[in-house]
């Protein structure tokens, strides 16, 4: 029986190389904010964020700190707290290579990797400006139809690294993902996966079928770090709610580059100079 490879949040940030295509979970799936802060501290550069299917504070903070070269997402937003200030500013200044997509396309391009197929088909899309701006997508005629029936094919997009935050891992390294099964796809599609957890629990989730149902098996995970409140100020299902006051404070501060810098300084997030 295997033990857990425990590493630190900082080691995870070191293991995400500059320029990586990074898998980014939605706000409801467990966002690794502790690692996000560590990425800012280590001065990560050139990251490309593949969001499944959207990002909130994680993407906005990485963009504000200059860690990000490109974003592929269905939305970048602070949700009920407003627009994502650093993202909007960077986009409007032409400083972000944005690939606008739509939720099911972001799922499908990872499912293509997951299934080892070069592409996946998807309905919809035709005639949208999303498709018009995606020269990497293709349209074929459905070979099973006797009539003209265009279908969009989306290529597989393999991620370099996925990092997620979860409520717990067990003593052999299985990770609870519950019904956030999009995390399984986000992880299957990545060459490497690192996970932060609130805590390590005793036992093995595979001992009963009811606990196994919510598990991501350990063999997909390259390293696990304990990070209590690791999604803060975002929430974590069944664990803690989003910290609305802090999120409002962030959105207000990040409206200007100076305010964003002051927010980071206030949080003790001091970016090391790029190597």
């Amino acid at each position, binding site marked *: 029986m295997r033990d857990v490879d425990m590493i630190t949040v900082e080691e995870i940030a070191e293991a995400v190389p500059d320029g990586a295509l990074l898998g980014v979970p939605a706000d409801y799936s467990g966002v690794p904010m502790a690692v996000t802060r560590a990425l800012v501290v280590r001065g990560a550069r050139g990251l490309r964020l593949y969001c*499944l299917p959207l990002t909130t504070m994680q993407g906005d903070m990485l963009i504000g700190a200059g860690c990000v070269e490109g974003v592929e997402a269905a939305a970048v937003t602070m949700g009920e707290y407003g627009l994502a200030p650093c993202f909007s500013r960077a986009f*409007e200044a032409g400083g972000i290579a944005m690939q*606008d*997509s*739509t*939720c099911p396309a972001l799922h499908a391009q990872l499912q293509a990797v997951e299934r080892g197929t070069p592409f996946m088909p998807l309905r919809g899309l035709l005639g949208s400006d999303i498709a*018009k*701006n995606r020269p990497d997508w293709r349209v074929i005629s459905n070979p099973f139809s006797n009539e003209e029936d265009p279908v969009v094919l989306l290529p597989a997009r393999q991620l370099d690294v996925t990092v997620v935050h979860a409520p717990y891992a067990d003593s052999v390294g299985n990770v609870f993902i519950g019904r956030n099964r999009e995390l399984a796809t986000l992880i299957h599609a990545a060459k490497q996966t690192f996970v932060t957890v609130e805590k390590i629990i005793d036992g093995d989730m595979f001992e009963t079928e009811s606990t196994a149902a919510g598990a991501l098996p350990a063999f997909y995970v390259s390293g696990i770090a304990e990070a209590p409140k690791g999604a803060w100020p975002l929430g974590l*299902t069944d664990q803690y709610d989003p910290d609305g006051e802090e999120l409002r404070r962030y959105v207000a501060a990040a409206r200007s580059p100076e305010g964003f810098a002051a927010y980071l300084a206030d949080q003790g997030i001091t970016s090391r100079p790029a190597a």
Partner: protein
Amino acid sequence: MTDATREELLISLLADMLAEDKHVAVGAASPIPGAAALLAKAEKAGRGGGRMQVTIIHSRRHNPFTDGSRELFDCAARGMIDSFFLGGVQIDGQANINLVGVGEYPNLRKRFPGSFGSALMYYVVPKVILFREEHSPRTLVKKVDFISAPGASEPEVHRPGGPHALVTGRAVFGFDRERARFRLQTVHAGETVDSIREMTGFDFDVADDVEETPVPSGTRLARIRDEIAPQILTFYPEFAKRIWGLAA
């Protein structure tokens, strides 16, 4: 009982559109559509009309999916979602919607979050209700700056779904998919066909008998306040506080 607020009027008229549905889905940050769906469900059950699955993505309690966040899109793509709500930074006269921003893409003057799932949902859900409270020449435009999803498609495009109506803080439009044009159906209290024309950036048809949008009955209003509001409180606390003075 006090009169219906604008929000309660909208909840009521949206609920009428959902009355016979089997599965209504509501996206993130949509308290009014969410309340309308829960009201329609309660009324359908109340009259013995059968079950309605109301899926509110924003609420763990009303999110029945266990196959990850793709399940909503999978369900919709195979025709299992009857109704869904979409909004837009801009909506134009052909029912094209823009959730991306204002200006010439990618050189936008103002960037908004993005298209979310609209570029599939709008094509496959039979009854998509466009819902945008702000009704102004700024939101209802002649031509959107970016088509997140088009209102109508070429005949060869697989498109079982599309726009059913446009509901705003001022009026209700139907949509003619053949002609790809909106038709004004009712105006809310205080509005006229002319006032609507003035506040709408696109050209539209006008029904022969444009009347005032009906206000909810006393029974319905009581149900909204007594039965629906406490449910909304659990997952849209700020909205419930603002509209009904409820506190979690």
